[in-house]
């Protein structure tokens, strides 16, 4: 937008010029995304097509990798575990984080600054630092290998994320709206549910989706806190890299299944992407 004013050349460019630019852009991005494309293609290839020294672009697609991985090797269970853990941890994070974020966005208290700083530090906390105590604690109380242990571990980043994200959305709702609602006869809680919440629906949906993606993608906590029965998809996949041989076709299939839902979700919240990736540190859009 801004560039057009300082660059009259762009405006003078003809149709062919623009077509050419479009072609170059598409080609660049095809090359850029080729690892992803290659992975998805490989998931439909049979062994022979995968293990060739020069890449095969045209092949006869097969669903064998999917059926073997999800029916015979039990990745269906991993899929289910990923869903359960992501949904529960996101729901808890929203339930705890939204009221906290609302309070932080409205009442200027003395502790607010300190609390926000603590939240920020919590977001800087490397997962590796928490993994040791969480592992030892989970073993001591006998929660190791349960959903609860992983959910709790995911909450360590999910709650601070929710508070930061939602605080931004709540700050965008003028305080005078809650005040008007309270003068109109609402209690503080009713003002929140009837006025503020409907106005931040989009923000809550975006936060929820980012929570799901973050939990879904998480690897380290899941690796050390789950057992065979509760392992998520990212934990399960490396099992296919065995000393006897690597089942690349099946890896590609499971990886594709891991990645497809988050892609769909991500494009639904594209306009909140900057906010989501910076955890609400930067405003939306």
């Amino acid at each position, binding site marked *: 937008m801004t560039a057009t004013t300082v660059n009259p050349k762009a405006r003078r460019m003809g149709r062919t010029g623009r077509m050419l630019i479009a072609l170059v852009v598409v080609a660049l991005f095809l090359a850029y995304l080729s690892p992803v494309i*290659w*992975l998805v293609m490989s998931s439909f290839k049979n062994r022979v097509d995968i293990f060739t020294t020069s890449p095969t672009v045209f092949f006869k697609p097969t669903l064998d990798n999917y059926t073997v991985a999800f029916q015979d090797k039990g990745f269906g269970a991993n899929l289910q575990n990923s869903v359960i853990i992501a949904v529960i941890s996101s729901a808890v994070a929203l339930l705890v984080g939204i009221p906290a974020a609302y309070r932080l966005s409205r009442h200027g208290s003395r502790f607010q600054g300190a609390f926000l700083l*603590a939240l920020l530090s919590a977001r800087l906390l490397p997962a*590796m630092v928490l993994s040791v105590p969480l592992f030892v604690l989970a073993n001591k109380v006998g929660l190791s290998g349960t959903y609860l242990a992983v959910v709790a571990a995911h909450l360590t980043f999910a709650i601070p994320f929710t508070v930061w994200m939602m605080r931004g959305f709540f700050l965008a709702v003028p305080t005078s709206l809650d005040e008007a609602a309270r003068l109109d006869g609402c209690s503080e809680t009713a003002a929140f549910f009837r006025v503020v919440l409907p106005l931040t629906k989009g923000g809550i949906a975006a936060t929820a989706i980012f929570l799901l993606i973050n939990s879904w993608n998480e690897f380290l906590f899941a690796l050390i806190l789950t057992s065979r029965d509760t392992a998520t998809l990212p934990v399960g996949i490396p099992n296919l890299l065995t000393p006897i041989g690597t089942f690349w076709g099946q890896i590609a299939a499971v990886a594709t299944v891991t990645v497809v839902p*988050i892609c769909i979700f991500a494009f639904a919240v594209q306009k909140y992407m900057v906010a989501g990736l910076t955890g609400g540190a*930067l405003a939306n859009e």
Partner: protein
Amino acid sequence: MLGLVVLFPLAYSIKLSFQSYSPIIPNHTGQWVGMDNYQRILHDGDFHHSLIVTAIFVVVAVSLETVLGVVVGIAIDRLRRMRRFATSALLLPMILTPLVVGLMFNFALNAQFGYLTWVFNTLHVAGGDGVLNGSVGALVALIFIDVWEWFPFVALMVVAGLQTIPKEPLEAASIDGASTRQVYWHITLPLLRPILGIAILFRATEAIREFDKVFVLTGGGPGSATAVNDLYQYRVSFLNWDLSYGAALGLVTFAAVLALSFLMYRSLRRKETAR
């Protein structure tokens, strides 16, 4: 709630770091050892090596991401009809499961049948035994992959930042006779500096904790060539089961990350107020 899920484990970790605890090493049953674990850090050559690897990885990767991100961000900003397509395509790598990203490149760079190996061989840019099997090649590959995954973050921030820049200074500069390139260099980039600072801060603090991709790409190898800090800690805690020492290493890392981000944030702030 936050206290329960974060502060308690953190406090427990501090306690653990002054003990000697391991589920498998004999005589490590949780007795107090004072500062022993921290003293060990000072003389741990493997740890120091991991710090060097981490430093190289973070500095090179984040620098490349910043430069590439700015260039691509500005280019995207100048696109018109392709703009939406370009931003969508850039989003993809960032939201992909990091473990899958690692696997994907492990696959693509496979010495026998990886399609990127084939490309490299055809162009004669790399030797025949696979990039990941050489210690330099593996680190370069790791950096390359991180840049592939994360330069869009900087680019996206630049695109967002460019939209908030007021038009008037740009117009004033072009009236003052600056060429397009001069406008970018003298006006746009300085105006983008705050948002770039935030982007770099985010990238640096995240790159310091790199684990998933290394784990599945090289496992830290060959040898310890790509054993970044978090991977080394993983080896200590969950391969050697030296959990107390792992706790101490973790706390030292956290303190370093906090200090580093505080310093970066401060210099960011100071530049802001100085203007």
